[in-house]
């Protein structure tokens, strides 16, 4: 069952919205309507549903209507037409009091430029939502302290925001949003004002927090990398319409329109593609200590390869055996692999990005083994695949 359900939502800025919506439905473009009626279509017939605990990313360039859309979800902006249900209640029909309750208890928001209050301390900022709810001081400070701790700001309670860096200020913003324990977090370009490294950190921390808290998150961004990283599903917006909704994989692999395709093409594939996505899972291996050099050479011949990975009974990677070495061992009448297994070889984790794999492989004429955290063998990546994928990315970027 979905926690947020948006149906046929429109937002028109300016006078005479009815006429504008009629024109939209007749197929007029945004610019034509602007020229004829002086109104701007902010959101054009948008529908989607979000499941509880889902991270739903809305992505688009500036002016695509994504910020308007997120503000409709708590009615900081009044929608013109359509319905938005949160927990099965149509919030577009709520009166002032119900709306205030919704904002206090169910939906909280994190802002692009942090919007934390400079005249309040970190603690007062974090407890602001609870203050509005009328929670007594000790209790709200207790809860605020907990959420400050969750975002890693323990010990900063009594500082004023001006003493904090941008990243820390946004942590205060996040703590303020979490303190009221809402079902839904609205994050409006929450990390866009941060520099790239801090931004990555914040993304990782949000993912960790999300693992624990399982909030429903609506995250607005203009950055596809961020969308792919954070989103369980991604909605792509253009001119106030949603042009595609899907998992990161679906958006990457089958862009629905030319617009999405262009967007996706801008992504640096070498950062998005991981070992898991390009590895060969059905790789031939030999087992240690059962198999000897003869078996090794035989398998290599069967599969037209010049080296082979060795694993133990639990499928843990031990090393690699080269064809030349196996041949020498046979000539020397050896029966075990001990003397010819090369154990010191580079490996990749399933989520190692393409770029790093490339670095691991340079200068070595070996395929790359992909292993998990417990050194279990998962598959192999051969040089050719890496090169081909890198080349694809390069072409797409041009």
């Amino acid at each position, binding site marked *: 069952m979905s926690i947020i359900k948006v149906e046929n939502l429109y937002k028109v800025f300016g006078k005479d919205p009815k006429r504008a919506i009629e024109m939209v439905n007749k197929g007029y473009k945004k610019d034509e309507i602007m020229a004829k009626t002086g109104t701007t279509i902010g959101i054009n017939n948008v529908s989607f549903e979000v499941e509880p605990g889902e991270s739903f990313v809305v992505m688009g360039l500036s002016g695509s209507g994504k910020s308007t859309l997120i*503000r409709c979800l*708590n009615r*900081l902006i009044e929608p013109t037409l359509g319905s938005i249900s949160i927990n099965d209640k149509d919030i577009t029909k709520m009166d*002032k009091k119900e709306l*205030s*309750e*919704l*904002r*206090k208890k169910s*939906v*909280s*928001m994190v*802002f*692009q*430029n942090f*919007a*934390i*209050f*400079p*005249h309040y301390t970190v603690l007062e900022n974090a407890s*602001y*939502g609870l*203050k*509005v*709810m009328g929670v007594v001081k000790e209790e709200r400070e207790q809860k605020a302290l907990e959420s400050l701790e969750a975002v890693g700001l323990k010990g900063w309670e009594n500082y004023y925001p001006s003493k904090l860096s941008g990243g820390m200020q946004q942590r205060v913003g996040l703590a*303020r949003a979490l303190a*009221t324990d809402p079902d839904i977090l*609205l994050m409006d370009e929450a990390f866009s004002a941060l520099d790239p490294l801090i931004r990555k950190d914040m993304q990782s921390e949000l993912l960790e927090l999300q693992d624990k808290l399982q909030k429903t998150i609506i995250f607005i961004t203009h950055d596809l990398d961020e969308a792919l990283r954070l989103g369980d599903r991604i909605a792509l917006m253009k001119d106030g319409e949603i042009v595609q909704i899907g998992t990161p994989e679906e958006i990457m692999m089958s862009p629905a329109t030319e617009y999405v395709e262009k967007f996706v093409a801008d992504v640096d594939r070498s950062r998005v593609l991981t070992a898991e996505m390009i590895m060969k899972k059905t790789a031939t291996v030999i087992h240690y200590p059962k198999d000897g050099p003869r078996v090794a050479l035989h398998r290599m011949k069967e599969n037209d390869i010049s080296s082979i990975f060795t694993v133990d009974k639990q499928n843990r990677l031990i090393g690699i055996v080269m064809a030349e070495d196996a041949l020498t061992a046979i000539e020397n009448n050896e029966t075990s692999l001990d003397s010819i297994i090369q154990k010191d070889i580079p490996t990749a984790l399933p989520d190692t990005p393409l770029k790093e794999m490339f670095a691991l492989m340079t200068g070595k004429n070996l395929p790359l083994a992909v292993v998990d955290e417990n050194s279990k063998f998962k598959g192999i990546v051969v040089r050719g695949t890496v090169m081909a994928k890198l080349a694809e990315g390069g072409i797409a970027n041009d």
Partner: protein
Amino acid sequence: MIDFFIPLEDWINIGFEKVSYYLSPFLRAASEFLGVIIDGFEDLLLWPPEIVIMILVALLVWILASYRLAIFAFVGLLITFGLDIWEPTMSTVALALSGTAVSLLVGVPLGIFASQSNVVERILRPILDFMQTLPSFVYLIPAVMFFGMGKVSALVAIMIFAMPPAVRLTTLGIREVSGEMVEAARAFGSGRWQTLKDVQLPLAIPTIMAGVNQCIMMALAMTVIASMIGGGGLGNVVLRSMQTLNIGMGAVGGLGIVILAILLDRLTETLSKKVKKD
């Protein structure tokens, strides 16, 4: 030649006569109330020995601002005593500060009101323009018509002259608060009043303080002109020096005004800086 004449003069004269006739009971009450305030304030300043006031003012300035300004306050007041203008100086302080107080009492709420409603602001703006640009001598006349000669009409004239910056800068300060801040308060369920109280007003205080400073300066400037309708104080000293072409007396009265102006300006400036820092 065209024959065109607007009898504005007659209209206004007739209008004012009617208005003052119907409003007279209310005006008399207001006049008495304001009179009590100014006279009380003035009496309070003149009642203790001069040295006590000098020390008290210096101490107050020290607490509110800095020891350097406190020294200036003490020496400045000592000079006015030495120039034998202590009484008119205190009278001017009483008039200027009660004028400022009344201006702020009316002006700041009006400014807040105008910040919340575009309609109110649109109505207020031309009225404020009118109040600020009309030659200040002109509204001495209705002040006298409504309240007669004396300190109360001087106070009213001061109020009209000094209120616009308080209104404008209050409105500006509140409207300047970033939209995201206001959105943040509202997104957590704050209503209009709570958003104003928690976020907009505290963040607007530096600008509002600039309005207070302007208001005091304009009130002080107006006390001189208001001496023509019985405002008394240092303005009266200056006025008499003009009537008797006594340049020395003019300089003495002028110096008193300058000392007060510098003191009040630095004091409010330091205060608004302190507010900003916190």
